[in-house]
């Protein structure tokens, strides 16, 4: 099977997955107790007004009809009216999603850029001080609650050292194209705006990345140690190839496949679980918006957030699968 057919098939597979997700979240959002219309209208609303709004929003119609109407809207890019923000959810998504996407992507970048060298170091210096230190760091990274680490970082870097801003995303770059401030400032070749945006994202992204960073570090270490014991590694060493060449060109590429799986999964996990970090840093992201929507039972907001996160998760995993082929040519597109 060639790559193109494989890609089309994988994309087609996404359709039932997202459809299933939409049915599930649609039903769940309707059956959880509490009436969003009463919250939206204010607690003094009369029964008559509640019924009127129920009619306007179509919530008085059978669940199947509501679902079909909603999904028809989604296909047109209309996620419905938000009872919380009093505007179309699509506008909310356009405002909030780029912030979370940027935060999560930078967090993943940090996890890979710091986690991989530390993992390699731990493998190369197995059972030495660097290895023990990396093990302790990994344990701390996995065990430390993110929100607590976030508060500690704030106290250290914003309050005491005054190196980084305490909260927020900073001012939007003068030209907004993608909604990702780092990207937009680079596209506009505005290095000052890039630096300001980077200073704002650095702390929350690091706090968010720590768990994944620890996982990457440990997986790379384990993978590298396994690869180092293989015959091809011994042969390469006996031929007198330089250590760096063996590590980076041969061992790392093979050791990275397992880590890649975790990165794909982690990306989705970070997207959905950025809430605590977004709360501490007042980061205007989708997780923050989603939890607010959930608290106020804003049906359309909850469904839209779930679908967008689900879709991103699926796309990232598709990319991961494609990358397998690059790292391990033995994997065919079957």
């Amino acid at each position, binding site marked *: 099977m060639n790559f193109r057919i494989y890609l089309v098939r994988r994309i087609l597979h996404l359709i039932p997955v997202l459809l299933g997700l939409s049915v599930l979240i649609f039903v769940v959002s309707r059956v959880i107790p*509490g009436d969003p219309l009463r*919250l939206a209208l204010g607690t003094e*609303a009369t029964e008559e007004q509640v019924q009127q709004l129920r009619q306007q929003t179509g919530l008085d119609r059978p669940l199947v009809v509501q679902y079909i109407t909603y999904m028809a809207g989604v296909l047109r890019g209309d996620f419905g009216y938000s009872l919380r923000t009093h505007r179309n959810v699509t506008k909310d998504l356009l405002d909030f999603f780029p912030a979370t996407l940027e935060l999560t992507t930078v967090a993943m970048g940090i996890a890979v850029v710091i986690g991989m060298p530390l993992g390699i170091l731990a493998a190369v210096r197995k059972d030495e001080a660097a290895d023990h230190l990396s093990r302790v760091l990994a344990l701390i990274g996995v065990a430390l609650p993110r929100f607590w680490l976030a508060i500690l970082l704030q*106290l250290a870097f914003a309050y005491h050292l005054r190196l980084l801003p305490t909260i927020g995303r900073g001012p939007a770059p003068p030209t907004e194209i993608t909604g990702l401030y780092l990207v937009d400032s680079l596209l506009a070749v505005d290095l000052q705006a890039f630096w300001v945006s980077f200073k704002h994202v650095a702390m929350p992204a690091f706090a968010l990345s720590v768990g994944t960073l620890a996982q990457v570090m440990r997986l790379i270490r384990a993978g590298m140690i396994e690869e180092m014991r293989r015959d091809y590694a011994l042969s390469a060493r006996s031929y007198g190839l330089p250590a760096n060449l063996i590590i980076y060109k041969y061992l790392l590429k093979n050791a990275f496949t397992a880590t890649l799986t975790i990165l794909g999964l982690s990306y989705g996990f970070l997207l959905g679980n950025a809430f605590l970090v977004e709360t501490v840093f007042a980061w205007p992201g989708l997780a*923050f918006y989603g939890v607010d929507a959930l608290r106020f039972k804003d049906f359309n907001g909850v469904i839209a957030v779930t679908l967008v996160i689900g879709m991103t998760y699926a796309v990232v995993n598709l990319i991961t699968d494609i990358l397998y082929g690059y790292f391990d040519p033995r994997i065919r597109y079957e």
Partner: protein
Amino acid sequence: MNRWRYLVLVVTAAVALTVSANPALVLSQPREVIFTNIETQIITAIDPQAAVDESSLHSAINLYDPLIYPNVEQGTMNPRPHIAESWQVTPDGKTYTFKIRRGVKFHSGRELTAEDVAWSMDRMLRTKRGFFWVFEPVLDAGGTQVVDKYTVRMRLKGAYAPFLGALEVFFIMDKDLIMANLRPGPFGEFADYGAAMLERQDAGSGPFRMERWDRATEMVMVRFPDYWRGWKDGQITRVHYKTVTEEATVKTLLISGQADMIPQWLSAQSFQELKQTPGIVVKEDPTVQLFHLQLNTKKAPLTNVKLRQAISYAFDYDKALQQIFLGGAKARGPVPVRVPGWASNVPIYSRNLNKAKELLAEAGYKPGDITLEYVWVSALPLERLIGLLLQSNLQEIGIKVDIVGEPWANVVARATKAETTPHITAIFDTLKYPHIDSHTYGMYHPSCWGTFRCMSYYENPEVSRLLEAARRAIDPKEQMQRYQEAQVLIARDAPSIYVANPLHRIAFRNYVKGYRYVGLLGFDNNFYDFTIVR
């Protein structure tokens, strides 16, 4: 150089020197005074007629003007002139005529007139959002008439005691600006009534105009130079209104000086901590808020008044105030003590276990007979502590209490029917409009059943008659007398355990001057009142 040229040169040089020595003379622009306010809730809408929560009301108060204003200078919520510079009421209490102040400008530059007032009232009654429910019983869309450019008349269906006070939350909008920016919507000729436009800009005449609004993070407001009340040095020129939900972050921002003021929603412990911090002022005021445990009088066994009284005598009010609220005043009946019209002769319950046991026996119950459900709002841990205290107190007279935490959405949903309403529900209830009617008629007249404010499902024909008479009364003395009589009867029937009028706490940097607690939700943060004195 001739003599005149020489003179002009000398004068010019002198002016230049004076001006450079005193920059104030060149500044037609005021000194930039930036103020950073932190709030823990997002601003959900800048449409002032949709605002009901604190942060949205903050935006309304700063971007718009209400028709009349609470008399904050005298520390009361009674109405004083604002956009309406005077008013007259007919002897039957049904017709109000307001004289509109001349020379008030909208941010668009156009003058505010009676036409805008009438149009804004109709808009509120048609869109049925925000505080429309206060006006709806007595006023229909079209019931507000323009008499002339600066006179507007409102004809009510009947005399209505809270009407004038309620106008303090009626904000006037720029009719022409909104009508010129309509988008398709459900309101016929009024299309969306400006909803889309109000995403991007305000339509007000308030002291500040909106410069930027990033939902969920920040609204930037800048001084409106033509504000009709004028400006003086030291007043704020730019407000950064930021939303930060994490308590630890909020404290860090204030302590580090990155914020000038933080909101009331922090825990009492955090305010205690901030009190010890140099450079920070924690201001505490008794509130016009009631914290009470509503007893469902339509659900057995709480249908029995003696049982309700027994429970009221068993509760440990002092412990609740000292150890859970860390201050505040004990509630004395349904009306907060600071509200004009509070009845000093209202029956007050204090902890008396013997009396509680006697009443329980008189009610026909023995220890162990009763199990009650206590519901607390799961976002408010303080209410859980109150539940634990109640559980332990009632155990002493042989009543078992099951404590259940529910999200607010569920509490509101359960309140819609007496059968689904819990036996006991913990509720914080702030004055909804600046009148005693809010905490009497608004909580104990059967017309409010089905809302969280009326989870006691209280019904007493005598009280209903008194409250209806009070609303209709034209003579203020007679009106207050009716409300006071009703309070006494309500408290005697014990439809709630009246626990506390908690303290209102707020913290700000010590160079912020002019803050005063108003009591009417949101009005404390009218940034026009603040000056910065460093």
